[in-house]
């Protein structure tokens, strides 16, 4: 039992009784806005995972669609008995179901590209920081040049060269993102390299691979977690933009961007719901991720670590 009196500041010794993970979690949960963001995010992820189970209609099943039901406003009654809560789009798809499935695709593409870019960026950044010299200069020059161009331009050109399709979109997203991770991890690794435990590891004549993976990498992770969270949101937004421009995912697997693009042509005739609701879904996803990332950044700030 630690002697923690309510209302008085907790001393470092008492706090040290908690594991770092629990401390991070409790710091995170202290901000109500972040908790709201996290809750929203978990809800969205749950919707995406369980989409086939909770959607009123399967929007990919062409047999279920009827073009006579197209472009109905929100709240219209469906012939099968239910209600089109958010209206239907131009092919008769129920907007709510299309949004659920679209969330699924958007989240999957965002997460997959982030994970791949993280792995590649980590590898390149750690290599640059550990070996230094010419290797580092070369890798960092490439990173700098790539980061000086806007992400959307690089992604567009890659899609124009590679063609369309879900694998190529992920490849383009990975190419755009790895540079952020490489730069962040290299910065963190350079700081960690000077600490004593690294010197101790070298004195023990451990192999470079072991030093990098077992000692350097775990200590560079906190800033990476923040960058990765923000980048998931950026990847989702970028994929939506590419799909909106017609250069992203194919029509058979509509992501939220494509749904919005479908509704673009009906905007001027007042049928706003085809674009509005997928956009709101996209917005909520990105905002919740950003809220969580903001709080994570404050919590994992090394200035506040003991």
């Amino acid at each position, binding site marked *: 039992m630690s002697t923690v009196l309510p209302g008085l500041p907790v001393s470092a010794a008492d706090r040290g009784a908690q594991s770092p993970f629990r401390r991070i979690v409790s710091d995170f949960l202290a901000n109500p806005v972040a908790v709201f963001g996290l809750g929203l995010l978990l809800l969205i992820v749950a919707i995406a995972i369980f989409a086939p189970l909770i959607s009123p209609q399967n929007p990919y099943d062409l047999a279920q669609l009827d073009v006579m039901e197209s472009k109905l406003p929100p709240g219209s009654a469906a012939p099968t008995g239910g209600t089109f809560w958010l209206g239907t789009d131009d092919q008769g798809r129920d907007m709510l179901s299309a949004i659920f499935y679209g969330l699924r695709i958007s989240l999957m593409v965002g997460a997959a590209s982030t994970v791949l870019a993280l792995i590649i960026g980590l590898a390149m950044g750690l290599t640059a920081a550990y070996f230094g010299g010419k290797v580092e200069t070369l890798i960092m020059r490439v990173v700098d040049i790539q980061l000086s161009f806007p992400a959307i*331009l690089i992604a567009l*050109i890659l*899609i124009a*060269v590679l063609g369309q399709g879900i694998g190529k979109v992920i490849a383009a997203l990975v190419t755009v993102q790895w540079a952020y991770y490489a730069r962040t991890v290299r910065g963190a690794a350079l700081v960690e390299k000077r600490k004593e435990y690294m010197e101790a590891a070298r004195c023990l004549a451990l192999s470079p691979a072991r030093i990098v993976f077992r000692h350097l990498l775990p200590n560079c992770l906190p800033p990476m977690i923040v960058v990765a969270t923000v980048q998931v949101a950026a990847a989702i937004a970028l994929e939506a933009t590419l799909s909106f421009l017609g250069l992203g995912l194919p029509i058979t697997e509509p992501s939220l961007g494509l749904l919005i693009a479908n509704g673009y042509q009906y905007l001027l005739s007042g049928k706003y719901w085809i674009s509005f609701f997928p956009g709101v879904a996209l917005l909520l996803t990105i*905002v919740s991720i950003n809220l969580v990332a903001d709080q994570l950044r404050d919590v994992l700030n090394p200035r506040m670590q003991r």
Partner: protein
Amino acid sequence: MLVYIIRRSMQSVVVLFVMSLLVFVGVYAIGNPIDILINPQADQIDRENAIAALGLDKPLWEQYLVFLKGALTGDLGKSFVHATSALGLILERMPATMELALSAMLIAVVLGIPLGLWAGLKPNGIAGRSIMGGSILGFSLPTFWVGLMLIMVFSVMLGWLPSNGRGPTSLLFGIFPVSFLSWEGITHLIMPATNLALFNLALLIRLTRSGAHEALQQDYVKFARAKGLTNRRVIGVHVLRNILIPIVTVIGLQFGALIGFAIVTESVFAWPGMGKLLIDSINLLDRPVIVSYLLVIVTLFIIINLAVDVLYSMLDPRVRLTDSKG
């Protein structure tokens, strides 16, 4: 100082050559150059003539030199769709994109810095918190969707602003076609420029706020106040000048990003700029135009980055002074 500029310029030239090599490799070696440069509707005899004329049967390094020579003289092929010089098409549309990007940057700076300053000076008030909350919204909102919603509200529901296109243009200083000199031009410009500005607005608000927050904790502010200066002078002269240096660099760098994001805004609002041309060309497989766009953009970015670096070294006395000693 001069040494710094010369060194950076030489680095930029190297980068330019590397990028031209990358574009060349991407288009000529990886992509099928025959499809790219020769009209896909040409028949067999025309194709063979064109291959010989374009020198596609020569070794790769020789082709690169030919490509480079063409690039330096401004000949980057003819557009398949418009049958005029590809480079000419791009340069014709550049003023429109520049107008859009500059207006967006102006909006972001004029609104962003004061708002960020306000949030930094009063971080715990209602205004400060709502400005910060609004800024998170600003860079979470997907640009193209905001554009659609703006059109929906202001053009369809309220009918105040036109939904697409550019207003009538007149010549500024006799050379640049601009549209903001007429009221009709401004009504066409307002929505796309605001849409484009949102992301940068949010970024500038956050930057200015964190800069002001940090600066207010510095000693020189304490001393200035102790000296008896009015609050307005302390903030307006001392704090502002010190936080402006990183902000100016970010503004410069973000200008390049603005030109990139303009692609999306131009597509949504049918603004006749370079970005819309690029999207149309990608969809129509008009590859000479894509290549020209790439080269123009790369050159533009390299010039912008160089200018920002030089500007930063001029503004930050620490860089300026240490450099002149060395």
